[in-house]
């Protein structure tokens, strides 16, 4: 998404969904994963007569509340959306003005859409042609429409194409930058958006600054740490700019060199140690590989409030450490919600027994490893003080430094004020009143300055920038292939000095673009560009001029740096339609993909997978469980609701294999792994696929690991891990695992 228009986050908000006239959901299950937030969907349905359209391989609880339901074959969202676009373009339902002014490259999409007539889409997706027409007609003609997605769309080998296809659909309909529209990606875990914004990822510095020298230097300066010292932390300087391993493939870093394992590019060494902090490592794909890797490590440390089941599946006896971390109730600080807004949390109880809050664990580690001073320097630098105050100084440090997503306004003081006055905001628009007038709840980023209101609806040019409006980000240059990438004339946010498209603001173009004059003092202090402007002058001046510091450009439907410039359909690596694999093969194998040689076409064509593994494997969540489930399965009432790992299977499919309802069954994966689960007859899946929930651990290929838990720490419910049988497959750009579109074979026990 970031490659389409600049930011890769939910563009509107949950409350804003109440403004929608049509809601289409691809691969998301908000009734289960956002039960309270689902109120907004229901209210849209009730009050706004908004129809809910669900496109999902199984009939979820969300689908039960939907008006239209398409039971799509996993991994065929792109053909579905092309089918929709084809109908939209043919009927002229697209927003021509919007496309003209604010989108680049739609012509290529229009051309590709012609390759997807409705019958072909029906064949590939498994959805009835009439239903696709019905859905498209309704969605296109009831605007504003909002498009919701989650893991069902992203966890594929071409997930990064999926997540561009959806924005393209919304752009075609002119549903972007309007209340009730937008691309509303539902983030899952508590503060996962915050973690993403701080880039707990291996390919960028916090705030999406990337790993270029310029970014490193900016951070060194902002943290008050010597740039050369930072550079010296790497084995050789060029490694400073190289992406690291991902969560989904770290184990390759350990196992590389073993027969059959993908090669790695890690400067001639394997990974030796692993420190897991608040991560359900058993919930990453290829559980058996994770186990193998854990066994082969020199050091494994697990830091969690409950025993991380990574410590259970490994056979490693020595040098395995479990550190008790406190929960979110035992610490204070800000958290970021799925709609980019921050909320302040206050400590409810001090960390219990020997538990320590996460930050204290990190500080203690830093002290012993010798970089505590450097780590904490950033919190003291602004006021040049000796002691830092946690968490306020950390929050203010983030606000001071992160300008890319406009966190400047997220001072601890403002966030705490919102916490104290959280009843003074409107449920739908987030607008504050009374004491909170002029602010949106949680100051959704970008919040350009310390007095900015926050931006609840991204890319909305019907509002002034001061009030949260903006155009698309100028992130991809000024022109491409001779076409202007800046927004069309007259399509600037309301009240802007510059009524047309304009580039991102830097030291050199600010006076010209904003039509202002800087003083000499300002000129001496101003930063190189808006992202590294420590003085904040650029942002302040932009606010006065009613302009967004990041420019006003066109969103691009064509990403010329990607393997597929416009999204193209590629079958999942393990597809039940061998005939379509020939027509729509996967990508070429990618070398050095986050340091791991990752297989695509070689895996897909290794054998006719559909022959021995004819059943689609669909994974998903349960409402009473969370992630790897170690916390919930240790809660007796939650465990009682689903005490065992199970598999939803259609009675007809079960009948073919002689599996009774409630009987144990085996699920075999193409990787040669298997799990033993209880069958559960359900009509929510069609007879060509089965569903397994992802939250269980503690049993591995039929063997119980209950004896391996330290005394008194075993959860009430254990079960097989779904990821023991999810297939090998990783997205071409992000390396997210293809857990939503695999194959399996089943057998009765």
């Amino acid at each position, binding site marked *: 998404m970031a490659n389409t228009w600049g930011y890769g986050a939910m563009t509107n908000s949950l409350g804003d969904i109440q403004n929608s006239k049509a809601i289409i959901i691809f691969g998301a299950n908000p009734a289960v994963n956002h039960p309270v937030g689902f*109120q907004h969907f229901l209210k849209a349905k*009730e009050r706004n007569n908004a129809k809910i359209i669900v496109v999902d391989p199984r*009939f979820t609880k969300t689908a*039960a509340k939907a008006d239209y339901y398409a039971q799509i074959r996993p991994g065929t969202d792109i053909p579905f959306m092309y089918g929709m676009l084809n109908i939209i373009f043919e009927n002229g339902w697209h927003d021509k003005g919007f496309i003209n002014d604010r989108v680049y490259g739609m012509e290529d999409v229009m051309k590709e859409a012609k390759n997807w007539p409705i019958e072909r889409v029906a064949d590939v997706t498994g959805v009835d042609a009439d239903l696709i027409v019905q859905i498209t007609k309704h969605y296109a003609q009831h605007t504003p429409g909002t498009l919701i997605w989650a893991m069902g769309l992203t966890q594929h080998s071409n997930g990064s194409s999926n997540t561009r296809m959806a924005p393209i659909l919304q752009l075609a309909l002119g549903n972007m930058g309007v209340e009730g529209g937008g691309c509303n990606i539902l983030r899952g875990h508590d503060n996962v958006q915050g973690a993403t914004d701080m880039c707990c990822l291996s390919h960028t510095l916090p705030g999406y600054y990337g790993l270029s020298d310029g970014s490193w230097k900016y951070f060194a300066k902002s943290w008050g740490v010597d740039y050369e010292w930072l550079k010296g932390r790497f084995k050789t300087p060029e490694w400073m700019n190289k992406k690291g391993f991902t969560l989904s493939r770290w184990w390759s870093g350990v196992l590389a060199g073993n027969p059959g394992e993908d090669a790695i590019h890690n400067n001639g060494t394997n990974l030796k140690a692993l420190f897991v902090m608040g991560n359900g490592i058993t919930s990453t794909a290829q559980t058996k590989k994770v186990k193998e890797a854990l066994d082969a490590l020199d050091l494994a440390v697990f830091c969690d409030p409950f025993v991380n089941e990574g410590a259970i599946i490994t056979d490693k006896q020595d040098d395995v450490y479990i550190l008790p971390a406190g929960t979110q109730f035992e610490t204070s600080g800000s958290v970021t919600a799925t709609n980019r807004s921050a909320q302040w949390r206050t400590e409810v109880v001090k960390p219990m027994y020997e538990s320590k809050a996460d930050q204290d664990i990190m500080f203690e580690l830093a002290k012993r490893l010798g970089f505590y001073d450097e780590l904490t320097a950033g919190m003291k630098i602004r006021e040049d003080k000796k002691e830092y105050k946690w968490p306020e100084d950390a929050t203010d440090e983030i606000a001071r430094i992160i300008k890319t997503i406009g966190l400047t306004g997220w001072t601890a003081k403002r966030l705490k004020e919102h916490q104290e006055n959280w*009843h*003074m905001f409107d449920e739908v628009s987030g607008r504050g009143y009374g004491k909170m007038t002029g602010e949106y709840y949680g100051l959704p980023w970008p919040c350009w300055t310390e007095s900015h209101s926050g931006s609840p609806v991204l890319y909305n040019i019907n509002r002034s920038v001061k009030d949260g409006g903006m155009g698309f980000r100028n992130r991809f240059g000024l022109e491409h292939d001779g076409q202007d990438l800046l927004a069309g004339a007259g399509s600037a946010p309301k009240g802007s000095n510059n009524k047309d498209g304009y580039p991102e603001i830097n030291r050199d173009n600010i006076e010209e673009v904003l039509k202002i004059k800087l003083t000499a003092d300002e000129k001496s202090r101003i930063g190189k560009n808006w992202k590294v402007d420590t003085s904040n002058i650029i942002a302040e001046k932009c606010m006065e001029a009613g302009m967004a510091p990041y420019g006003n450009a066109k969103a691009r439907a064509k990403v010329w740096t990607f393997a597929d410039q416009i999204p193209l359909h590629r079958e999942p690596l393990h597809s039940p339609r061998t005939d379509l694999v020939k027509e729509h093969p996967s990508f070429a194998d990618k070398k050095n993909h986050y340091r791991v040689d990752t297989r695509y076409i070689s895996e897909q064509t290794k054998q006719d997978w559909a022959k021995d593994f004819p059943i689609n494997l669909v994974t998903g969540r349960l*409402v*009473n469980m969370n992630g790897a489930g170690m916390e919930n399965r240790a809660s007796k009432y939650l465990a009682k609701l689903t005490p065992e790992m199970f598999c939803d299977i259609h009675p007809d499919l079960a009948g073919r294999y002689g599996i009774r309802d409630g009987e144990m069954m085996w699920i075999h994966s193409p990787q040669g792994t298997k799990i033993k689960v209880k069958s559960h007859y359900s009509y929510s899946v069609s007879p060509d696929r089965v569903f397994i929930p992802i939250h269980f651990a503690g049993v591995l290929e039929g063997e119980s690991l209950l004896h391996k838990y330290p005394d008194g720490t075993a959860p009430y419910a254990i079960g097989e891990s779904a990821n023991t049988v999810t297939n090998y497959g990783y997205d071409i750009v992000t390396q997210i695992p293809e857990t939503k579109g695999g194959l399996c074979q089943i057998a009765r026990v």
Partner: protein
Amino acid sequence: MSNNNVDYARMKFYCDEQRCIHCDGCSVACAEAHELPVEISRRKVVTVNEGKQGMEFSLSVACMHCTDAPCEEVCPVDCFYIRDDGIVLHDKDKCIGCSYCLYACPFGAPQFPSDGAFGTKGVMDKCTMCAGGPEETNSHKERELYGQNRIAEGKVPVCAAMCSTKALLVGDAESVSNVYRERVLSSGHGVQSAPYGWDKAYGK
């Protein structure tokens, strides 16, 4: 049915099947708040016609606190009592655990732990609408036997308080029907300016 007794409310539950998403928040909240044994389900959520398009729906059920409660009728030791506001409660010290109330109940509200020798039933436990029992209000004994007494503190029963989508409503029958009526009548009338009741809470 309107309440002819002007002095008291008539407390009722209502579960809106258009909104219930089977999140089980109500059943878990109840179990947590009253620290129930795991085998007891004072409140449970059931999905009907699972997986069938156009037919699937979910409902949360517990004691309905009937006006003509059959449980109260059949109890051989007369351990039930019905409050003026309609909440049906019982006395666990009197109860002999014969489970006749369960047989008579149309909704299966009475629950029995199998904690006696040879698996024989213990005394009956059921939803109290968070109104405790005959013991002294908010005493330790009441808490141990019946769970929280939230009604005495002016709080909403915990199941409805926790309902994710506000499918489960509880309160005076008239208030509940007003909320639901508002919900139905406002259908198609566009985005609300403030959530129901916020004008009373925050003087907006």
